[in-house]
């Protein structure tokens, strides 16, 4: 099982390389933010260990709760902030706000 997992690991590394190496410079910040959100998947690790732990001590429960909170912040915040960034790249037919309050 372990060796199979290592094989998956190595292949995933090549997939990541192949997919990412085509990204244009302009999308690097959103990309970093997007991949950042994806590694928030560690939240699953916290959920599984806490969910399946039968005789966890109070300390361990506390650590895992914090881990899940951290992981959730990583996922939710990461995807949202990436979405906000990318919305700005959408081409807009006519610039809607030319004379806003910043004119002054």
């Amino acid at each position, binding site marked *: 099982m372990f060796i199979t*997992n290592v094989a*998956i*690991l190595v292949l*995933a*590394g090549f*997939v*990541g390389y192949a*997919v990412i190496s085509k*990204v*244009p410079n*302009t*999308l*690097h*910040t*959103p*990309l*970093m933010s*997007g*991949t*950042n*959100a*994806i*590694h928030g*998947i*560690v*939240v*699953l*690790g*916290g959920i*599984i*260990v806490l*969910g*399946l*732990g039968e*005789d*966890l001590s109070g300390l*361990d429960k506390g*650590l*895992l709760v914090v881990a*899940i909170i951290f*992981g*959730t*912040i*990583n996922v*939710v*915040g*990461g*995807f*949202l*902030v*990436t*979405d*906000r960034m990318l919305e700005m*790249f959408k*081409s807009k037919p006519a*610039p*809607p*706000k*030319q004379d806003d309050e910043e*004119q002054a």
Partner: protein
Amino acid sequence: MSTVLATSFIHSGDLIAVLYIIAFSLFIYGLSGLTGPRTAVRGNRIAAVGMGIALLASFLIEGMGNWTLIIIALIIGTIIGIPSARSVKMTAVPQMVALFNGVGGGAVALIAWAEFNDSAGFAGEPLTFVIPSLFAAIVGSVSFWGSNIAFAKLQEILPGHPIGAGRLQQPLNLLLLLIAVGSAVAIASGETATIYILVLLVASALLGLFVVLPIGGADMPVVISLLNAFTGLSAAATGLALNNTALIVAGMIVGASGTILTRLMADAMNRSIPSIIAGGFGGGGGEAGAEGAGEHGGTVRATSAADAAIQMAFARQVVIVPGYGMAVAQAQHAVRELATELEKRNVEVKYAIHPVAGRMPGHMNVLLAEADVPYDQLKEMDEINPEFSRTDVALVIGANDVTNPAANTNSESPIYGMPILNVNESKSVIVLKRSMNPGFAGIENELYFEPMTSMLFGDAKSSVAEITAELTAL
């Protein structure tokens, strides 16, 4: 205990395995969508759907308990995450990414710690479980503390210049790494006392602090990217320990992409990753630069908004060179208005985007897109550099190191060899700057002392607004 965990995954049904496969396929598909501006929004959302499916799958695992705690933790995380992502200013995105990355690394380290406690010091666990867990603990901890320092530096809670122990820094870091790895080896070879995991976590935490503290602010994007890759790798290691394919694939993809991004950024700055980690660029470089500046001293020419407006009004082509100064001053909307005003007068306006202008690659694009600057006016370095020789006015807005001709001419300069925007080739250069303080890398810019350069001191946003006002009055 954890072998029990592992076996329960294997036998918990093919459904979960299939859901994981769907989830990581969506991650990969979504990420490939992020490669183009048109598909990027959808790509990100697809990846988010994948995350939802992966979460759902883990809820289906047989024998799950502690639901109250899990739900509460998920809710708290969401309540913290949503507003911070919604309210963050676009200029503060780099440090937000650092923070989100840090908590991810922290989660990894905490999981490893809890597992150590839960299995009574990994007693009787196979090495295929113990080694990835210990790796995750070290790397996650480094990433958490390192990212927090990166956040504090970019948020200017800590000063941007390098802080360190000078000559002692490298031996100290090496010692900390040896302590962390040494504790890991002790645990792997059968030690079960809690003190070992605590020493490991503390040594890794200090390592994270001491590696990032001496790094100058100019190198921070590269560091965040590197830490992002680290967190990915540590997530993959957690996946190996828990026998969870979704974690392995997602973590490793991030590890690979983060590594590439890091290298691309380092290349753009003509810096090697090891020399960045060695730190001290901002400080040491400043001294060398300051000596050079002495020779030029006193030949800086100041100008007024009215003069700048006249110069640009009668230009054929104006190239705007934005930098971090524009981001700090939130001047992107004002810049857009200036460009609109110039275009009314048939002046051709282009934007020169250096790959590392601002604090991250693409930082300027994000800001200018926010101000509705048309995508096709943004020119990358290789595209715009040949154009400077037929540009009448280059308007440099808070960009410094990326315009420093010393990178091409002065082999003594710490940035020698870094690809720059050749603004000094244009007929005249107007630099908007708060003061004569050197930039983030701490290096004096020779451009400011050139005869065709004039300086307009002040806050970038109000300077741009003044120029626009003068233009409309002309």
